[in-house]
């Protein structure tokens, strides 16, 4: 095998292809093959073992878990390099001709949760239009396209929007109080689980496909509000109207500064045993995290990647091939 093989997250895929293409163009090595298929599948392939018919790099939109590291170990993949190369912002956007929205997590929680807090009590959610959720919102039917449970984005959505909104609206405390859990931990767990219980009456629609599907659904349903990646939105600003969260308009800058709340890190994991064996692997990862590529003015940022403020540290780490330690 002459070319580098990578697999994994479809969120990372566009960045990885941009890098692979530039790498193939400017180096004497063949263009790496970039597979998609999900972070989980990518990490599974990475952990299948070392050798020519296993991949070299797994792209991931979420951090590797201890279980995956254990699987890797049991298959002889002992050393993995963890490279965080930037952040992905997650935005809410609706049809361009529709009204503007300025959300807080509590608004979205109030619209989508099965049970909401009202006057200090937990009541079933009956809101039909956004106006029912909060005065000042338009009388537009609530219809939100949220990522399906297969997507890593869903996890971010759940924790940073729904749970945050749950806490902000006071529902979390009510849930916790109502929980029959034995200790505080169990109660918290119950409360989180209750927060994450979303309506099943069609107000929230899970999307197992990609952002293009969400976009098409919004085109078919003008009332719909979708969850998108920042880069996807940036390529479709003429079709989508983005909503602010906590008053902040999402952009590469606001996410990088930490003002916009909904974002997540993006990673790739390198099988260290393959460095020095698969031609060009070292060059590729160096190239990936170089300032020319992943820096604030590089093509990735142009495309919508939020650059990692600690990129220099990462570059250093990649250069020295430092394998990751135990998970913190």
């Amino acid at each position, binding site marked *: 095998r002459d070319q580098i093989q990578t697999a994994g997250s479809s969120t990372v895929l566009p960045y990885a292809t941009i890098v692979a293409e530039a790498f193939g163009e400017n180096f004497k090595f063949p263009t790496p093959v970039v597979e998609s298929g999900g972070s989980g599948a990518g990490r599974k392939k990475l952990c299948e073992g070392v050798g020519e018919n296993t991949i070299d790099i797994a792209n991931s939109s979420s951090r590797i878990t201890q279980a995956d590291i254990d699987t890797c170990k049991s298959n002889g993949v002992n050393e993995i390099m963890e490279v965080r190369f930037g952040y992905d912002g997650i935005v809410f956007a609706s049809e361009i001709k529709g009204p503007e929205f300025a959300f807080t997590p509590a608004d979205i929680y109030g619209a989508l949760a099965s049970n909401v807090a009202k006057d200090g009590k937990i009541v079933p959610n009956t809101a039909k239009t956004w106006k029912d959720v909060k005065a000042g919102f338009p009388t537009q039917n609530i219809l939100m396209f949220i990522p*399906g449970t297969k997507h*890593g984005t869903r996890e971010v959505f759940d924790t940073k929007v729904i749970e945050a909104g749950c806490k902000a609206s006071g529902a979390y405390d009510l849930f916790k109080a109502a929980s029959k859990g034995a200790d505080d931990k169990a109660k918290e767990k119950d409360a989180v689980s209750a927060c994450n219980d979303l309506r099943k009456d069609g107000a929230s629609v899970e999307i197992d496909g990609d952002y293009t599907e969400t976009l098409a659904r919004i085109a078919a349903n003008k009332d719909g509000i979708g969850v998108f990646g920042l880069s996807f939105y940036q390529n479709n600003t003429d079709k989508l109207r983005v909503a602010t969260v906590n008053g902040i308009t999402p952009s590469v800058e606001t996410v990088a500064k930490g003002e916009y709340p909904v974002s997540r890190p993006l990673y790739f994991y390198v099988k260290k045993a393959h460095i020095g064996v698969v031609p060009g692997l070292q060059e590729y990862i160096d190239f990936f995290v170089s300032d020319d590529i992943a820096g604030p003015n590089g093509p990735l940022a142009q495309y919508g990647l939020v650059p990692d403020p600690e990129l220099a540290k990462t570059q250093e780490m990649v250069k020295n091939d430092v394998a990751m330690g135990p998970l913190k």
Partner: protein
Amino acid sequence: MSIGILTLIVIALAAGGFLLGRQIAVGKVAGDIRKLHSLPGYYGQTVFLFTAVPALLLMLGWLLVQPLLIHERVGAMIAPEDIASGSSASLVMSDVRRIADGLALIEAQGAAIPADAGTVREALGRVGVALGTDVKPSVYAAAKAYGAMSATGGKAMSVAVLVLALAGFGFAIARIRPAFRARNVSETFVRALLIGASSVAILTTLGIVLSLVFETVHFFKVYPFADFFFSLTWNPKFGGGSDLGIWPLIWGTLYISLIALLVAVPVGIFSAIYLAEYASKKVRAVVKPLLEVLAGIPTIVYGLFALITVGPALRDWFAQPLGLGSSSSSVMTAGVVMGIMLIPFVSSLSDDIVNAVPQSLRDGSYGIGATQSETIRQVILPAALPGIVGAVLLAASRAIGETMIVVMGAGAAAKMSLNPFDAMTTVTVKIVSQLTGDTEFNSPETLVAFALGLTLFVFTLGLNILALFIVRKYREQYE
């Protein structure tokens, strides 16, 4: 000698053997082939088979075994300390292989083989073989040994294969006698081939079951069996604590497939009947392949069609006026669109079957004053029933296995409802999405895909057995 050329030589030899065998057979009876047990061609065939088959089998076996042997011997040459920590012997071996191939390339270009390990990387780089790191001396030595052994092995293989081919050739030629039952020999061989082909289906099944069963067992270790089979909710969550009951998915699968078949079967059968019985030859020659295009359009196109056109239309024209909800993705959308895709499965196959019903049956019916449609309904369709059922089963199978149309047409939410305008989803969709998602691999959320696959396999097996019984009951043989 490259494998391609060796194969060609063996086949050429076998082809020559065919001609020679035939010649000899004819010669033995002085051209009077009536005295031969079998047709001369069969004598040729036996020579062909005896020459080609054992030799090619040997080659195949050799190619599988030789690398293992060389691997073992060369592997011993690499000192354990040369294997970097975290790396493995197999990775070093792949480097050895790459270097050996590069050296062969250098040799082929007439350049000098680098003398010591230090310059190897550069030299190989010049012929376009990239290496990850500099080469250690022991690795270089191993690579050279590897090259030498492969070369010898290759030569030995060529010789062995050719000798075997010639031996088979000679043996078969020597066996040619007028009384030699050449036809039976070659037919036995053909039959063995046919059996071999049928066993592919069995092996595939075995492979599928085996590749699903381990992970399924794994799944049931982390997720309770009863919850999977008896829970009525499907609600996977990222961080664990998911409900993974299969029933909503099974229900969605059945519902969507049923609607798809309700569209595809009548349309398909009526199309088939029209094409086979009414349409002129010209119309048929045009329409049939056109309908088959429907089966060739990628399902993503249907998916988009469902999402953008059919879904909103059904919502605006049916669901909302009827008060059945306002979801644009629905079982109905996916079913109708999938039905369109399945039309050719029913129509083309049924058309062939209907066309094969003997004319005399039609004559018999017309002769006592039946109209064409009566003839079709009461004589031709019953006669063609087993074939048509086969076509319908095939369509049903595709409906069960379809992903893209369901995702875009019916959505991804698992639900058990009778309302055809509700969004639902199928087992297959969930297999795909759980398998390609971002969830951790060893979590029940991902492993459930295997359990779903296996359950679906058993479930459809049951449906097929049922179908077989029904067909058996109504089968009617003509002539």
